[in-house]
């Protein structure tokens, strides 16, 4: 889609301004229903698009992403723009600088339409924990779009944006991509700078693109990846344009099928979609290899120890002093006699939602004296063994294929009363974050539920820093007729 728009822009069949206006129009028309956006930056979008048109008028060459309208998850800072992470804690927070990914997009000339809804501080699998209301799944408005990057996924699936950025700590790009029938890529840990991303769990978080096609995801990914002195975990500079390496061919590619990802948690209908997809991979010339990732069963409990532990430290900065919200709600404190501790307790009580409080407390508990060895240390050991599982598997195969999520999009309220049911949504995605490997979710079929065809995503996981093979395989699958 991006390439076609780019050709039209170059040929002056359309202008970047008219493209921006068209997408702002779609947002106007649809977003009161869908609720993908928290902030629409129409003025900035139009002036940025106008600059692209001036460039074209001057006969200058433009990049593939120039003038292409995209959206950004509201946990990434954009200078001068309200950035909330969907929390009351940051209700009035205006970001003082651009996240590196935002500055990359600006340098590429992309048109930024606005900031999208999400689970509060990216904690959730349905976008229901946002302090600013629901985002509906564009395929079926009675269902969740997935989470935590539900707004970004819904913006792309509804046609409001051509692409969007999300962040993925345990599946928050891939699961909503699966639920909304689009493509979502979580890059290798350290591939994309996290500078300016409001941190959830710093050793797991990674920013990546949503798009309607694998090629579009590759185009966006190529422009946000690379070394950044502001994020010491970024290790490699990137001048590769991954969209130029999508050959459409996967013959001879060795694809691992991990038996642990086809457990009883998997919806039977999703299983049957998966079986058809596996047959199709084989018919495209891939060599299927049965593999085992034996430590998979410990991944989810290890994730739900490591992630909240990092959450409890990262969210300590929200103190009721520096980031907009300040609450002193008891009478005796109003006269100025309160203490600093009371400022913390009250501001955080008011500013954080239920799930955020739960995870901060879980992490505080897991890291406290006496429990550190029993929980955190053990979870880190599991994490290393999961990494070794993948390392061993990748000696035998090039990529690994699994379902993205155990089921298609579920109705609102379905899991909000049962924590563990919600946490199970991440069962097939957390391993890639724990190991730090790249993984993509792309549409592989649908299941029929109550008269609606709900999308199902397949996940391809690759070797560290080998997004190229993951993208190439997903693209070959997608473009096979």
């Amino acid at each position, binding site marked *: 889609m991006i390439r076609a728009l780019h050709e039209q822009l170059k040929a002056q069949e359309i202008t970047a301004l008219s493209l921006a206006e068209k997408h702002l129009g779609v947002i106007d028309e649809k977003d009161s229903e869908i609720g993908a956006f928290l902030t629409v930056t129409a003025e900035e979008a139009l002036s940025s698009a106008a600059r692209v048109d001036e460039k074209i008028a001057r006969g200058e060459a433009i990049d593939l992403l120039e003038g292409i309208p995209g959206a950004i998850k509201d946990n990434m800072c954009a200078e001068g723009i309200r950035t909330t992470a969907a929390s009351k804690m940051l209700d009035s927070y205006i970001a003082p600088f651009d996240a590196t990914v935002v500055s990359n997009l600006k340098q590429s000339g992309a048109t930024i339409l606005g900031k999208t809804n999400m689970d509060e501080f990216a904690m959730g699998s349905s976008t229901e924990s946002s302090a600013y209301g629901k985002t509906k799944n564009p395929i079926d408005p009675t269902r969740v779009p997935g989470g935590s990057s539900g707004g970004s996924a819904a913006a792309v699936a509804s046609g409001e944006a051509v692409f969007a950025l999300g962040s993925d700590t345990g599946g928050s790009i891939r699961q909503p991509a699966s639920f909304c029938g689009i493509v979502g890529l979580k890059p290798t840990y350290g591939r994309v700078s996290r500078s300016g991303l409001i941190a959830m769990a710093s050793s797991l978080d990674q920013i990546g693109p949503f798009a309607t096609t694998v090629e579009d995801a590759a185009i966006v990914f190529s422009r946000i990846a690379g070394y950044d002195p502001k994020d010491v975990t970024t290790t490699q500079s990137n001048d590769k344009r991954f969209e130029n390496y999508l050959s459409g061919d996967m013959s001879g590619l060795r694809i691992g099928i991990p038996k642990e990802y086809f457990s009883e948690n998997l919806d039977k209908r999703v299983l049957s979609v998966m079986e058809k997809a596996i047959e199709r991979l084989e018919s495209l010339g891939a060599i299927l290899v049965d593999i085992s990732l034996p430590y998979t069963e410990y991944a989810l409990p290890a994730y739900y120890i490591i992630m909240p532990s990092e959450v409890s430290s990262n969210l300590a900065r929200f103190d009721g*002093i520096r980031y907009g919200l300040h609450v002193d709600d008891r009478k005796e404190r109003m006269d100025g006699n309160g203490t600093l501790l009371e400022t913390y307790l009250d501001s955080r*009580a008011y500013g954080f939602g239920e799930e955020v409080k739960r995870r901060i407390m879980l992490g*505080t508990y897991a890291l406290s004296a006496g429990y550190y060895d029993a929980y955190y240390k053990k979870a880190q050991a599991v994490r290393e063994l999961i990494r070794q599982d993948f390392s061993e598997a990748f000696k035998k195969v090039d990529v690994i294929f699994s379902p993205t999520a155990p089921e298609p999009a579920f109705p609102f309220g379905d899991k909000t009363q049962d924590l563990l049911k919600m946490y199970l949504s991440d069962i097939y995605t957390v391993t890639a974050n724990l*190991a730090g490997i790249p993984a993509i979710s792309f549409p592989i079929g649908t299941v029929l539920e109550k008269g609606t065809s709900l999308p199902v995503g397949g996940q391809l996981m690759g070797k560290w820093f080998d997004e190229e093979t993951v993208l190439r395989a997903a693209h070959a699958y997608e473009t096979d007729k």
Partner: protein
Amino acid sequence: MLSKEEVEHIAVLARIGLSDDEVARYQKDLSQVLDFFKELEAFDMPPEETSESVPRKKNDTREDRVENFPSHGRKIIMDNMPERKEGYVKVRSVF
């Protein structure tokens, strides 16, 4: 299940004020997730130290020098702080 006192203690460590209702709810919720953690009890710790998941690389360091931060940057940072006095951040006394 976690006791009322345990949840209250964790909440203070986490700097989160809780109402009595919330304490009761988190007793139940946190206990449910902690039970889930117990699945790791079946897992035997490997003998050697294996806790290094983030690949190590040499630390990036930079020269320690003062860089001029643009004044509009200072303003936008300060504007995010609700309690200010004479260009400083105002906080409550520690005790």
